[in-house]
């Protein structure tokens, strides 16, 4: 069984001219877990991953696999499997030939080509030119490349883009399985909802900077709890909340009070003699937490 290595970014920075695309990022990615690497388009995700893979040279800092830079890995494809967003295949070359070239260049057995085509469900399409592939098929071919060397580390840039619902379900299971086998799985996405069902940890960047890292559940605590409360007499409700010293703001379906427990707000209304027509905890999804973090990055 391939062993996952720890991916470590330390103070990595990339400047393109005056633009700082990636700004002093430091984080680690652990084996045995699926780590979501999130951020809006243009946040620097792809540049970060390309630096990790030695395709883009950092302006400063390092990115390593178990302490080794990609360039120094003795068997790169047998250590790291990477699929990058711009799935890059010569349109006139068949999928099978593309994989065979990668296998030859990396010194991997050519028998792996048929195996990985089968693994990603392209066994019947291996003889077709990549130019006629749909986006979803190219994503699968990209995945096939990553699996050639049966690596302990998987780095996937936006692997869910362009997949149909069946493909999305398949890749979620695939990511879980890979992590369960002890591999390190790093998956980028610009949408948390795309990956939240499969990731254990999240790393969120915005404008090239780290804005959050931790287990997926840690995102929930990022959002200040709120209670939605409404009354036929909103003005009375508002003054009751003010008198009780509870901050609030007008919302679409009532007032948004800063409180964890609806019961406290209910009590305030009751003692003030205000009729309550709605009272519940605001359901703030992870996506809201994600967007709040990312917006915060904007204002930096």
């Amino acid at each position, binding site marked *: 069984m391939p062993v996952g290595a720890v991916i470590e970014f330390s103070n990595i920075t990339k400047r393109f001219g005056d633009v700082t695309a990636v700004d002093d990022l430091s984080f680690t990615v652990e084996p045995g877990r699926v780590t979501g690497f999130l951020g809006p388009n243009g946040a620097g995700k792809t*540049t970060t991953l*390309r630096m990790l*893979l*030695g*395709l*883009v*040279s950092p302006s400063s800092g390092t990115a390593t696999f178990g302490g080794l830079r*990609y*360039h120094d*890995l003795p068997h*790169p*494809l047998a250590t790291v499997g*990477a699929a*990058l967003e*711009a799935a*890059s*295949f*010569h*349109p*006139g*070359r*068949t999928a099978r*030939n*593309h994989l*065979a*070239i*990668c296998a*030859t*260049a*990396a*010194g991997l057995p050519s028998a792996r080509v048929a195996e990985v085509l089968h693994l990603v469900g392209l066994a019947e399409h291996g003889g077709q030119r990549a130019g006629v592939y749909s986006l979803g098929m190219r994503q699968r071919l990209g995945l096939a*490349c990553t699996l050639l060397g049966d690596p302990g580390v998987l780095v996937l840039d936006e692997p869910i883009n362009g997949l149909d619902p069946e493909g999305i379900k398949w890749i979620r299971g695939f990511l879980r399985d890979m992590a369960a086998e002890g591999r390190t799985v790093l998956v980028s996405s610009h949408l948390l909802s795309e990956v939240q069902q499969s990731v254990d940890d999240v790393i969120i960047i915005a404008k090239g900077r780290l804005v959050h890292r931790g287990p997926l559940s840690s995102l929930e605590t990022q959002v200040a709890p709120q209670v939605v409360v409404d009354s036929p007499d909103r003005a009375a409700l508002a003054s009751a909340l003010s008198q009780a010293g509870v901050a609030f703001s007008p919302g679409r379906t009532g007032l948004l009070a800063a409180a964890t427990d609806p019961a406290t707000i209910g009590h305030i209304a009751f003692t003030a003699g205000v009729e309550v027509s709605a009272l519940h905890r605001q359901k703030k999804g992870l996506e809201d937490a994600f967007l709040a973090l990312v917006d915060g990055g904007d204002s930096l």
Partner: protein
Amino acid sequence: MTMLLRAIRAEFAKLLTTRIWWILAAVLFGYIGMLSGGLAALFAGIQSGAIDPSAAGTGTGTQGTPPLGSLPPLVYSFASSVGYVFPVLLGALATTGEFRHQTLTPTFLANPRRAQVLGAKVITLFLAGAAFGAIALLASVGIGALVINAFGVDTLLGDSATWSLIGRTVIAMALWAAVGVGLGVLVPSQVASIVIVLAFTQFVEPLLRFASMFTEATAGIATFLPGAASDALVGASIFTMAGPVGGATSTLDWWQGGLVLLAYAAAATVGGYFVSWRRDVT
């Protein structure tokens, strides 16, 4: 060493798994075959008296035709003197294609040692260029000799000088493919690369070589143009025949021509390595 061999095998697989190599090879064979056969028929016909010079439309009588005995090498050398653009294109396309189709990403992921990949590409294209040389010679010598023989003119195929010309043609074509790789890394834009190859080989250099013949000094400099160096290496060319009458014609020795061409390939490849190959792949 095994790493380099692996890289070379991968480069060969890349070259042979798209259609461009055999399309270029087929056009090369057809083009050189037609040219060699046609001009062999014209010149051999005139030499043998089968064709009346005035009917051939040269207007200058036999003056414009090569002296007897030098016709076969001239015809055979079409393989490189005219066909050299094909290995250059092959090398340039094999290299610029990596940029154009973004296959540099999988290439450098499989082998992050970029200088080694470029070295493997040069070696691979050098060998592929030699194969193109063989194909072009099959056309120029194969069809040319058949036609020359048909007019009863000596094909000189028993002459060892002819065979060393054939060998040197293979080397020239191999070097040209390496020049193509160098150009491809120097000018990674595929369109720009093709335009440069066609404009330079079909227009700029022939014009420079022709113009340079009018003075001694420029003629000396012009011998270092890549096409002139290639012709010197091969030892015969339509250009040395087509110069202005009484113009200065100087050429390098064959080995000097080979070294000059090698220098072009090396300089372009090393320059291109710094200009594009080791840059960020985004």
